[in-house]
């Protein structure tokens, strides 16, 4: 910042925003108290109705009144808790103007250079180039919007803007494993950041955000470092994210949609390189779902096999069996004719002898 006048101007804006933040809490308490009082008013009406019903011996109406009273008492109990939740929060002291100005002054020592944009009402610092493991993400501008400080607990009042972005291969909006759309996922830093901002400790705020940028949490990034450059298909080299890749359990490689298929027997996903076609139906299968024909040795699926023979060999076998049966039929028929002829000749000789 150029001079002390600018520093105090920025500090004054921050002070105003923090006073608005405190005021919002009181306004929230007022709103909840209004709701509580309205419900008590309804309870008063039910009291009068109940009295009137009893005077006129309207027992059914009295019963309905009691039901409504019960519901109102439940609502009032909830409203009581709501009001208390806001009203009993400890009173937060707003820091003095000189304290906030001191914080802004110390930022230059910590970050080298800070910028106050009077028109946009923002305070920015630039970090050193950020690197995690073997990947460089460049420097980031941490830009605090002073106007948004009054909405601290509804919306994040700052952005992290990559100045020399090296975004994830599969999502250009992710410029850091924990930054998406210029918004930081604060994780463990959420409470400390909110407390620092609420108390006007701007130096601590910027240091905390920088700490998040300098830390890699492998449990929950937008895009992991391992997949930062994307995942290349093992077969064709096409680069995409994990959701669009299929893992082949037979060769342990990732392949894209075009290079993957599935076994028609067990539905397992696999790459086209590991898939084997059934020689009969020509559908893809994994090795486990194919067997060899005992006769010809061709590889085919269970749908194209019967009695350990492929359908072609099975058909041949059936054809052979049929032919064999026919042959056997033909051999039996000539024996019968010979017997009859012999019997006729015997009968003829007998007749000749008798007439002789």
């Amino acid at each position, binding site marked *: 910042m150029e001079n002390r006048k600018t520093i105090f101007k920025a500090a004054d804006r921050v002070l105003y925003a923090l006073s608005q933040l405190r005021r919002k809490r009181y306004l929230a308490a007022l709103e909840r108290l209004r709701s509580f009082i309205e419900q008590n008013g309804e309870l008063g009406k039910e009291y009068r109705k109940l009295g009137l019903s009893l005077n006129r011996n309207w027992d059914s109406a009295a019963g309905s009144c009691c039901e409504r009273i019960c519901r109102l008492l439940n609502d009032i109990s909830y409203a009581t808790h709501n009001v208390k939740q806001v009203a009993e929060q400890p009173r937060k002291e707003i820091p003095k103007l000189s304290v906030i100005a*001191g*914080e802004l002054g*110390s930022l230059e*020592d910590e970050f080298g250079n800070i910028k106050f944009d009077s028109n946009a009402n923002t305070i920015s610092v630039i970090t050193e180039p950020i690197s995690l493991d073997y990947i460089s993400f460049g420097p980031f501008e941490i830009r605090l919007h002073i106007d948004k400080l009054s909405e601290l607990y509804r919306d994040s009042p700052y952005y992290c803007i990559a100045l020399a972005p090296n975004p994830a291969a599969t999502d250009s909006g992710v410029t850091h*494993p*924990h930054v998406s759309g210029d918004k*930081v*996922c*604060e*994780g*463990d*830093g959420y*409470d*400390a950041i909110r*407390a*620092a901002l609420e*108390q006007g*400790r701007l*130096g*601590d705020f910027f*240091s*905390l955000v920088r*700490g*998040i940028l*300098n*830390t890699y*949490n492998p*449990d*929950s*990034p*937008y895009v992991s470092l391992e997949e930062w450059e994307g995942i290349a298909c093992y077969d064709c080299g096409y680069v995409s994210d994990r959701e669009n890749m299929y893992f082949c359990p037979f060769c342990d490689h990732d392949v894209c949609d075009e290079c993957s298929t599935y076994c028609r027997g067990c539905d397992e996903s696999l790459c086209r390189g590991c898939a084997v076609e059934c020689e009969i139906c020509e559908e893809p299968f994994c090795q486990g779902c194919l067997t060899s024909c005992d006769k010809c040795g061709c590889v085919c699926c269970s749908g194209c096999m019967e009695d350990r023979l492929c359908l072609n060999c099975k058909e041949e076998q059936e054809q052979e069996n049929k032919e064999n049966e026919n042959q056997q039929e033909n051999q039996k028929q000539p024996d019968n004719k010979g017997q009859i002829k012999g019997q006729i000749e015997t009968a003829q000789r007998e007749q000749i002898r008798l007439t002789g």
Partner: protein
Amino acid sequence: MRIMYVNNSGGGFADYVNINEGTNVEQFFKEKMPHSQPSDHLIRVNRQPVPRDYVLCENDRVTITPTKIDGALSI
């Protein structure tokens, strides 16, 4: 004597604490953060970096900020 102690770990802590006279920064850190390493934290006194043997004075403000903070994807 009384100093202001700000710890930005976890939910944050900012309040006055009493310490013995002659306590230096290193001793104070070991007392308040016995399971942590100074090298993992940004330690400032009155917003300025100080040597570890700096002896704390009345009304000094000591700030301890972790340099590594796990961010996480919101679910």
